[in-house]
């Protein structure tokens, strides 16, 4: 967060890669997104986001795991890097800190 800005969608995709723990690639990430958040996005969006995350250093990738159902083509499998996991933790920490600062009745009074 301090060094590189992480957008909301990027954050979700990064979390998905973390959840899939080494099994994350284009297809699985798209499916997990749909399954867990209900968001249906184009494949290109996911593809671009993964590339951008890699450029920012939050994930790394390698080619591998060719299967017959994809015509023998390899997958690009993503893993969260140390930088990525620290970024996720920092976001989490920041949110928690912010929640702590919330006056007790604010949200309830606001009708949320």
């Amino acid at each position, binding site marked *: 967060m301090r060094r590189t800005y992480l957008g909301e969608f990027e954050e979700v995709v990064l979390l998905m890669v973390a959840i899939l723990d080494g099994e994350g690639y284009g297809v699985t990430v798209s499916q997990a997104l749909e399954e867990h958040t209900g968001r249906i996005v184009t494949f*290109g969006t996911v*593809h671009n986001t993964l590339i951008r995350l890699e450029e920012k250093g939050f994930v790394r990738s390698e080619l591998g795991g*060719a299967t017959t159902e994809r015509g023998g083509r390899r997958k690009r499998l993503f893993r969260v890097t140390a930088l990525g996991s620290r970024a996720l933790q920092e976001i989490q920490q920041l949110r928690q800190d912010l929640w702590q600062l919330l006056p007790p009745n604010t949200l309830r009074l606001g009708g949320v």
Partner: protein
Amino acid sequence: MNVSNGPPRFAHWLLTRLHPNDTLEEVEGDLDELYTYWHERAGRTQATLRYLLNVVSVLPPFVRRRKRELYHQNASSLHPIMIRNYLKIAWRNLAKNKVYSAINIGGLAVGMAVAMLIGLWIYDELTFNQYHQNYSRVAQVMRHEWFDGRKETGGQSSPIPLGTELQTAFGDEFSYVVLSTKPVNYIIASGDAKFNQSGRFMEAGAPELLTLRMVQGSRAGLHELNTILLTETLAKKLFGDENPINRIVTIDTQVNVKVTGVYEDLPTNSEFRGTSYIAPFDLYGSLNTWVKDARDNWGDKSFPIYVQIAPNKTFEQVSARIKGVMLPHLKAENAASKPEVFLHPMSNWHLFSAFENGANVTSEPMKYVLFYGVIGLFVLLLACINFTNLSTARSEKRAKEVGIRKAIGSVRAQLTSQFLSESVLVSMVAFGLCLVLVQLALPWFNRVADKQIVILWVNPIFWLACITFTLFTALLAGSYPAFYLSSLQPVKTLKGLYSSGSPSGWHSAIASRKILVVFQFTISIALIIGTASVYQQIQLAKNRPVGYDRKGLLSFPKNGFLGKENVLRDELLRTGVAAEVAESAYPLTNEGSNNTGFDWRGKTPTMSDDFGTIRISAEYGKAVGWQFIAGRDFSRRFRSDSSGLIINESAMKVMGIQHAVGEQVRSEHWQKGTFTILGVVKDMVMASPFERVRPTIFSIQGTKRWMLVKINPQVSLHTALPKLEATFKAVVPDVPFDYKFADEEYALKFTAEERIGKLASFFASLAIFISCLGLFGLASFMAERRTKEIGVRKVLGASALTIWRLLSQEFVLLVLIAFAIATPTAYYFLSNWLQKYEYHTNVSWWIFAMSGMGTLIITLLTVSYQSIKAALVNPVKSLRSE
């Protein structure tokens, strides 16, 4: 998964074509997998639709490209070490192929230099008269007049009362109205320093109108009658380093005037150049009594009028107001031409002074501007394309370098910037060289073109244009290696599998080079033919029989002789070096005036009675050596000869008389009276040697302003001139002995044509030079590409001669095609150009033949260097090299 069940083939094809290569594999796989997933979940139609949508989402411009070689991110291609490396490699490449580098850079520099010279010349033409700061508000008063139903434009000279009328009745339209003389020659003297100088007599507003830059004194210096302004040069000649202000100078040995100012010499590109003094207009009246009669005479049109319009007026407005100003004052016979006065703006004087039917048409100077402009563009284009071609051809040798650079980690952007910076460097070197060349060529160019052109060192637009052009050339030349070579796969180039793209790419590269060669040689051959014809035309005119003898004939004006002509004549003859001394109204090589109003027996109304008229002394004929067809020369012995005439052959033809001698001619305007024709002489070429001789009449009546001296042919000029000068000084000590040789004056008549000839041959030789460079490049390129073929042929028994022929014949064919295109083009333009001259040569076939042969020989020499080199190479070497 079988085909019918798979994703739509078109979408898949689109994906493989357009998706970035480096992520294609995984994306293809992912989409296949997703398709199967959608197919299972939502059926085929849904799957197809979603597949399509998602394919589009990974096509450019939506898709994000992976940055290759991420670890290179911080190794910027602009790192100083890398730049040093690029420079080093660029330098080594140049140094490795010295001949080629010299040809390449030299060729571009020469092309640029030619273009720059022409550009500067055109700039000079277009900025003519801009030395005068009121350039945009100054005009000359001119007239349209109707003659024989045609509207003719002229009237650079106006009557004096027109100027007076403009000053009094239309004063609010003008800031200045200045009456002036045409340039006139007078002796300007101070003590022993005396010089025959050209200058003008102008009204007091002139220095302001011309915005003279005063070195000393002020622009208000012409308000008194006996004053004069001098140029810096003339002041220096007269007074040396002393202060010229308030010194007295003598004009024409008669009038003493005071110097009230010194102005900076006017530049060559001013209409007023060579005006070395300006004196008050009224002073001209005191020197010439006839001006008194012209004061109120609307029919005597002898003086240019220059005006500067008032600040809030336009030329159109003022022209409209003064349009009819002359008409009410004219006598009936002069009013018939309905003169229509208008202002001709200074900005149009130089290039837009040709009129037809009262409207501007393309003038001769403008034609030259266009002509040279086109040539300059062509030469530049040739040089530029050549440079690109040679660079490209050479850069293919560097495919291996690209391979190695890529193998050790260069990214494409780095290679691109390397090649581009290299070609920028080379074209900058060429540009520097071009500046040097132009600087060196300018003195010669200025002499030939009669200009004072300098490089515009401080003009930002000049630099902007040059730099833009240089960068453009550099980009053009560097783009092929920068963008094509850098995209090659290192594995292929290092294995040696690389060839210039596909075979079709190679053929189109060769074809475009061939077209270029044809183009270049077309221009070169056309220029050669043009140059040769210009010289042929000049030679023809030079060899034209002139009808008199120019040798040892000198002339000088009779300014300041004060009636001592006869004394001088006797004294000069007494020295023994002068064979004859005569007088004439005009120098021999000047056609002088013409007049109408002659009548003779048998004259019909349709006959023209416009004759050249020259007043001479009786000895004129002996001095110039004219040749009689019939009759006899004037003689001092017969008093009645004063009413005699001698006419030339053309005049006799115009009059339509078979035996002219003894016929009577009545003259109404010129030397009023009746004359008898005494003799007929052969036509003498006095005016332009390119035109027909004007029918001319000679009489011994009236005043003559020039003296002619024929030097005794037995005496050499070296001994004759000092003797003549000594006699001259003794008789008329106040007059400088300023003489001109008739043959030199006559030679000056060829100046314009010789200028065209010199410039054309200059451009032609450069065009040939540049074309040969292109040819040389192409030949070496082809020979290199065919090294192996030649090797194999030699191994199989081909002789060097066969191989030389194999490599050369193609170029011969190209030159022949070029010749076929150039011939009709050149013929068309040349016959048009020659039509301009009344006395002209025809375009001769042998010029075409010679030009063709010459070009062919040069071509063969150029190509043979390469082809013989290739043919003599040991085949073992060429076949072994892998």
